């Protein structure tokens, strides 16, 4: 599948140990910045009840859903605590200069 790098934001738009929302082509994504200044991206909605994860709380490599406290490892997408049991889709991230890009497959909007 062809790469489809999409510019998301400036690195300074995301605080350390925090997450922001990014909407693109009718899909929504969550962009994370770890304590070590590494960036990650996952699909934007919790797999439990479709709540925006960008409103959730980041602790180490964990994102906690703002509604039911379900947890995922945002670096791998793995479900980490109930009530969530379905993993998150993750997306490759690259930094060029001060800009953050994520690689969204062309047909991703249709999957979401």
């Amino acid at each position, binding site marked *: 599948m062809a790469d489809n790098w999409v510019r998301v934001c400036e690195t300074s738009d995301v*605080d350390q140990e925090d997450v922001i929302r990014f909407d693109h082509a009718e899909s929504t994504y969550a962009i994370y910045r770890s304590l070590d200044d590494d960036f990650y991206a996952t699909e934007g909605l919790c797999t439990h009840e479709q709540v*925006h994860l960008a*409103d*959730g709380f980041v602790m180490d490599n964990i994102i906690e859903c*703002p*509604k*039911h406290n379900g947890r995922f490892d945002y670096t791998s997408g793995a479900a980490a605590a*109930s*009530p969530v049991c379905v993993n998150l889709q993750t997306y490759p991230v690259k930094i060029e200069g001060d800009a953050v890009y994520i690689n969204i497959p062309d047909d991703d909007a249709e999957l979401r």
Partner: protein
Amino acid sequence: MLNSAEPIVIIGAGESGTRTALTIRQLGWDGPLTLIGEENTAPYERPPLSKQRLSSPDSPVATITTASELHDRRIDFLQGRRAVGIDRTSQVVSLDNDSTLPYGQLLIATGSRARPLPIAGGDHAITLRQITDIERVLEAVRTPRLCVIGAGLIGLEIAAQAWVHGTDVIVVEAADEVLSRVAPPAMASLIRHRHERSGVSFVLGTQAHRIGRHNDQYIVTLSNGTAIECDRVIAAIGSIPNCELATDAGLLVANGIVVDDQLRSSDPLILSAGDCCSFPAAGSHVRLEAWRNAHDQANVAAQNLAGSHISYVTVPWFWSDQYDFSVQVVGTPSAGATDVERHTHDSATFVFSLDVDGVLVAASGLGTGSSAAKTIRAAQMLIEDRCIVDPAALADPTVSLRAIRKTATT
């Protein structure tokens, strides 16, 4: 881990009972495990019943798990079965089909039921607790004129959903403000104003005295003599814990099945979790009616049933969705607390309560969608750590609570 040959029986297939069963298996406990659910359906989540389920009746039921998943995990799910007795001497539970189930350990997670309206004609009022109540409530929120008795979370959620259907709503509340049991006055009045802007009317500080019926209309007479004509009446005045099984079995019961910090009742082989149990917190015993509590107690109950000795420690937390906003409340306000307000640029509002020593003890936040969640989650951590927090920093929306937490003292 405990002897796996001794069966574990769970009475109640709501959030607590079902989550306990699933977690016991995740922990690797492989003995006989039975989950008894008196509702004739797979285990489901109750919070949506007073929220999206009323505005989008065709939305799918949010299930906790399925019968086939329970089967795959060798959890014997007795759907539509009711436990009618517990014999603690022989360690058996009797069921409504005259059969009995032996137990090594038992979890009572029977939840609570809607409190009936204790006035003349009170049985005319509809209540909401389970999925079988939905049809009647849906019909009520779509009538031209609805009277809701009780301005707690459920009453206000129902009022907000009735507004979606264009219904005229009047809410009657005995206390002088809405949400008086759960939110600080500043937050409660903000929420009431939001309802009033949508056209919902409130009669506060007034009790419903009597409900009369004329054809398909109702007249709610109030303690001040006023009469409200309406097409349906919904009562949302709290819940009563389902403790009858425990009482009949001789367990200690006082506004809930009394349990210790490990959720064990006065019989150490019997645990209790969720809305039906009264557990130690902040120097007394409390009973919470909240999804989060039911979910978190299940995790502790499962571990202790599997042989651990873990204490349940919590800072109460709950949320409510009304209109386009969500409110989250965490902690327990103490007497003599000072309230500090924070207003953010995206029009979220927070109220923080500091006790006489300056320790953060409670916080509530209201914002569009879940926009208040991050701050409330950080506040929960500050409350858990009993941090002394600078009121000026709490009031300043440019200072994140994460930053406050890094510099806070205990």
